[in-house]
């Protein structure tokens, strides 16, 4: 009880202190400095209509590369830590008929929707991360519906690596063509799609990178789910 009271007091002090500091950062006021630059130049410099996407993929591309890496590390770490010689799925019962039929029917549509989200990342809200997560949900549903189901590992593992390699390669091509790592060579050097702003074929390498990210996020999240579902076989340590 004493510990709990201490913790509550500590937390209240922290909260008071935080609130005091935050009171100097007025809510709803215009605090933009770099942000204004982004909003004004985003269409010319990147061709994307969605400024957030442009910031994520173009201006702060290093962050996104790092973010993809973090997810990759997590997937790798999960696979490394749950690695056993023999593993199997231990679900006791199949999903209901509704779930099975529904997941079979919906699978292509969910995948299509995920693909739509990440291909249109530069026009509408969304992008590689929610798109990839949507694709992963489709596989999650298959895992829930069927007792024996497993993803095709021989496809997924190399695909995950290849998508990552693709991302870095796009960046390195930028280094070779434009002189800067992660340089948007399609938009700024080749100037493709300049008269097309606001439509699908524009925004330089954003759709390419978001497709790669979508594939990578989808395969990685599916891999995490797969590793979590399978339990070690008896005596298989």
């Amino acid at each position: 009880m004493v510990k709990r009271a201490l913790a509550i007091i500590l937390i209240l002090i922290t909260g008071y202190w935080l609130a005091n500091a935050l009171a100097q950062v007025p809510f709803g006021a215009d605090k933009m400095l770099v942000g204004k630059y982004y909003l004004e130049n985003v269409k010319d410099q990147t061709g994307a209509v969605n400024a957030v996407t442009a910031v994520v993929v173009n201006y702060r591309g290093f962050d996104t590369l790092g973010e993809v890496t973090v997810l990759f590390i997590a997937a790798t770490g999960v696979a490394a830590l749950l690695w056993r010689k023999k593993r199997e799925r231990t679900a006791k019962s199949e999903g209901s008929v509704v779930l099975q039929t529904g997941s079979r029917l919906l699978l292509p549509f969910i995948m299509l929707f995920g693909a739509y989200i990440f291909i249109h990342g530069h026009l509408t809200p969304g992008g590689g991360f929610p798109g990839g997560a949507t694709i992963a949900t489709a596989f999650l549903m298959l895992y829930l519906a069927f007792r024996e189901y497993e993803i095709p590992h021989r496809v997924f593992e190399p695909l995950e690596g290849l998508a990552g390699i693709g991302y870095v390669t796009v960046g390195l091509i930028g280094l070779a063509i434009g002189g800067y790592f992660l340089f948007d060579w399609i938009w700024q050097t080749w100037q493709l799609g300049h008269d097309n702003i606001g439509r699908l074929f524009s925004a330089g390498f954003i759709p390419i990178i978001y497709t790669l990210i979508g594939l990578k996020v989808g395969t990685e999240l599916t891999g995490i789910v797969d590793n979590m579902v399978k339990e070690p076989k008896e005596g298989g340590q």
Partner: protein
Amino acid sequence: MISAYYFGAISLILIGLYATLTKRNLLKILVGLSIMETGVNLLLISVGYVSGRTAPILTEGATPQTAVDPIPQALVLTAIVIGVATTALALTVAINLYEKYKTLDIEKIRGLRG
């Protein structure tokens, strides 16, 4: 007087911190961490909000003068993904610990001294 969103964000951070500091069940602690992360994300987004402006998607009708700050949104996108990555890894370690100790109570998981 601070705004409702600031209040909500700080409350979430504090509730999460409380759970991580006082709970004994590992999964509960991770739930706490997760809530804390949500709070931080809400805080970042509210810092970037400008009252009366719209989302930073510059289709017809939206100009740079009527959009909110895009940077915090980009940051939060990154932070959410990082959060879920940490959570997945943490849960994996928790599963490993459960296999070894058959409990999630941290008072009973004490292989290392100190």
